[in-house]
């Protein structure tokens, strides 16, 4: 395994753990989603529709429905590294089997 592959694997595995803790409740195991209520993250051309930055933004800040309600809650307690791992994992689910999303990309995304 090359150094890059090891790094990808680390991020993927850590990302899976984080995903199970923070995302799976709604988006279900392996990103398969729940009906049309909680969108699937695989098989929906996610990476063509959403850039890394947009995905990071959604995870960090959520998606608002109105002042007090959210379609998707934000995760402001998550560290940059944790979001980087989640996005790497979700991209891996979508067939991106190499490379990682860097922490600094996450830190760059602001509200």
């Amino acid at each position, binding site marked *: 395994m090359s150094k890059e592959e090891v790094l990808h694997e680390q991020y993927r595995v850590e990302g899976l753990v984080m995903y199970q803790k923070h995302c799976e409740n709604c988006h279900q195991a392996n990103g398969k989603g*729940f*009906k*049309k*209520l909680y969108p699937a993250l695989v098989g929906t051309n996610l990476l063509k529709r959403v850039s890394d930055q947009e995905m990071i933004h959604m995870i960090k800040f959520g998606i608002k429905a*109105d002042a*007090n*309600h959210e379609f998707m*809650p934000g995760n402001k307690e998550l560290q940059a590294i944790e979001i980087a791992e989640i996005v790497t994992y979700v991209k891996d689910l979508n067939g991106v089997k190499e490379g990682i999303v860097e922490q600094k990309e996450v830190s760059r995304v602001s509200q």
Partner: protein
Amino acid sequence: MFNRFSLWVLMCLSLVWVSCEQEKSLPYLGPKETKEVNGKIDTIYHQIPDFKFLNQDSAWVSQKDLEGKIYVADFFFTSCPTICPKMKTQMLRIYQRYLNNPNIQLLSHSIDPTYDQPHVLKAYANRMEVDAKKWNFVTGKKEDIYKIGQKSYMVSAQEDPNESGGFVHSGAFILVDKHRHVRGIYDGTKEPEVNQLIEDIEILLHEK
């Protein structure tokens, strides 16, 4: 002699056990009252009172719509980020299993009724691809919903600004029989408990 006797005891016990197995019945939950009628003591079981809420089609749903039916009730809100998704995946299992049995109904109460107006509930139900004929999502006056939740269905349901999403509620599924008695309360976030609920629905279906 002793051996024969213990064998006999064992047989009796196993007979009792077998007959218990065959006549499985569910308890009546909640406070009971006793009343004397013509010198006989009658037990009055806890009952869900009359209610009237608006569903996802902006139609009234009341105890009349559920008359003679077994139903499963729960408390949720559409923007709930915590346990509701788990509850809804489990409730959907019950929905699909009894899709063609009109005697089984589902009733989900919103505990965020000011936001969860019928059109919000409608969008939610549509996204789950479920039908109001079987599964009603209802909204109403906040105090009415909290009251029926706490007093009648015996679960916690109220506002709490410290909770994520702003409300605290249990993940309970409440099984109500044809006569509005509560016959079981289950953790709707756990698959094995919902399996038990389904087994108990089968028992109620065979009850006279």
